[in-house]
């Protein structure tokens, strides 16, 4: 850690990891409800738990991005963060908002109130006051990091990172627009959801990955920066019109079936470029960095994002295929591996890299950390396979043969059991990961050569 204000990241990572634990615990609970639908049915119904599962995921990933940015920007701009006080205030607002959301969902407070009650559009169910708070926090954050960069060294990594973060804030403003016409509502709702995860989030992902490659492999900045602009370009060139794959069946014109099919197929390309980038950098790099676990997570991120977002996305993105798979367990399988591979892994990679520096110790607990990578990734892959098979059966029975929804669901029990078993394995791996990053050890298991 070269700059004092990088320490801000530590507070963000602690919050992010706490929410990560909540997300997975709730996820395992939901998985159990699939097997025993009456579990908690009167206390906290499925929809409430599902909101907590998805919302905590989104918030912790963003909190992780904010933390990573506060860590990266000082090193890139070569100066301290403009105002650490603003950074901590921003975190306080986010924590307050998150607590407000949890309490509002759990106890259904202020039901129907336009300002204080939950709003109930998927993923953006937060009460309006929380959304306004998020916007304020985002503005504080953007001011803080943008000023730091403007007054300091300007690098491609910082540029792409900032552009991604500005995009996140700008597209989030669409939460304020909720037309009565469901088709219009859906069309612009995707401006938040798709243009985030298949657009500007990819820029953040590429920037964090590039920063890690710079530090871990010691490859020339010049080479890394060329790659990062290339990956960012591929992401947005394909991802923007790739939004079309959500415009097939919501009342939008038929031409989206062509545009969506073509451009979202090409969305595989930036993810493949990230795989090539990460492995080429490691191959070219001269540095033997002691933090092997961070390297494993970073490479794992590139590969799993390629499979989860790329391959599993392509699996059901062509319009004639999507006509049958839209809104089935196939979608679920893709959602789980894509979020895990791309955004969970990049956060865990960065935290694995930064935590020893933030806590002022060598990268101890590496072996256990790497074990947690394999167990967690194996578990997530198993969940994905189970849901993919469930989806294939569901598509045939429901979409081809026309059997009723619940009749079909009742036949998928085996897959849901397999999924739940793998979910428990993931939870164990998450607890193991948290232990390895937060609890210091006094000796390293594998001997490491001194860096460089």
């Amino acid at each position, binding site marked *: 850690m070269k700059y004092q204000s990088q320490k801000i990241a530590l507070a963000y990572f602690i919050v992010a990891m706490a929410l990560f634990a909540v997300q997975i615990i709730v996820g395992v609970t939901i998985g159990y409800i699939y097997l025993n639908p009456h579990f908690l049915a009167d206390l906290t119904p499925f929809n409430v738990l599902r909101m907590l599962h998805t919302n905590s995921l989104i918030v912790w990933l963003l909190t992780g991005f904010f933390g990573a940015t506060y860590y990266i920007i000082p090193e890139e701009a070569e100066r301290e963060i403009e105002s650490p006080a603003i950074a901590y205030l921003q975190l306080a607002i986010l924590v307050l908002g998150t607590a407000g959301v949890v309490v509002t969902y759990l106890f259904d407070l202020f039901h129907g109130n336009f300002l204080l009650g939950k709003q109930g559009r998927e993923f953006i169910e937060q009460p309006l006051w929380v959304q306004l708070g998020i916007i304020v926090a985002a503005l504080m954050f953007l001011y803080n990091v943008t000023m730091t960069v403007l007054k300091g060294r300007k690098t491609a990594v910082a540029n792409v990172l900032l552009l991604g973060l500005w995009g996140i804030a700008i597209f989030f403003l669409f939460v304020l627009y909720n037309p009565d016409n469901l088709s219009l509502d859906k069309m612009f709702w995707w401006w938040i959801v798709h243009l985030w995860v298949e657009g500007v989030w990819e820029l953040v992902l590429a920037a964090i990955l590039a920063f890690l490659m710079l530090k871990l492999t010691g490859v020339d900045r010049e080479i890394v920066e060329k790659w990062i602009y290339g990956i960012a370009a591929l992401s947005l060139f394909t991802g923007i*019109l790739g939004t079309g794959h959500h415009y097939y069946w919501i*009342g*939008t*014109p038929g031409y989206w079936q062509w545009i969506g099919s073509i451009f979202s197929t090409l969305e595989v390309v930036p993810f493949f470029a990230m795989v090539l980038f990460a492995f080429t950098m490691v191959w070219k790099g001269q540095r033997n960095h002691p933090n092997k676990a961070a390297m494993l997570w970073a490479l794992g991120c590139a590969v799993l994002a390629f499979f989860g977002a790329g391959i599993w996305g392509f699996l059901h993105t062509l319009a004639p295929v999507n006509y049958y798979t839209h809104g089935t367990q196939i979608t679920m399988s893709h959602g789980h591996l894509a979020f895990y591979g791309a955004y969970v892994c990049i956060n865990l990679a960065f935290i694995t890299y930064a935590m020893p520096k933030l806590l002022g110790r060598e990268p101890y607990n590496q072996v256990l950390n790497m074990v947690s990578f394999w167990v967690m990734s194996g578990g997530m892959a198993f969940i994905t396979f189970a849901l993919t098979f469930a989806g294939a059966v569901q598509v045939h029975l429901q979409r081809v043969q026309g059997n009723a929804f619940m009749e079909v669901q009742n036949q998928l029990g085996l897959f849901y059991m397999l999924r739940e078993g793998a979910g428990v394995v993931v939870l164990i791996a998450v607890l193991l990961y948290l232990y390895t990053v937060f609890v210091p050890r006094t000796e390293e298991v594998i001997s490491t050569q001194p860096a460089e």
Partner: protein
Amino acid sequence: MQTKSAARNIFFGGTIFFFVIFVGLVAHSYSYIVTTSTNVKTLTEAVAHGKKIWEENACIDCHTILGEGAYYAPELGNVCKRLGGKDAVMGMIEARQENEEDTRQMPNFNIKGKDLEDLAEFLCWTSTIKTQNWPPNEAG
């Protein structure tokens, strides 16, 4: 140095290019939605209020509507056609709220009276949206 600034210029120029096309197509889609695929004349106060009821109870975090949602409970974009009209939809919601014997039990949201009727209005309006013939069959 040369190639890096070229890469950057391609990135910014191309992004603007694709975003402008996207905005143009979305603008066209907007007018398609309000003139062709949805019926704005039948989008009454009741339908709008029904959508609020749909949202306030976070129905989408179990059900799907036009294929989007939580995949835990049946598709409702075509429920009005599947059950055969507004009254049947109202009857179904009432029955589901009270029946605790279902495999996947719907919570009792206590939706009744005008709220219940408007929710059904919203679902029946939704079933009139022209969705390129999705879903493939009545099962949704």
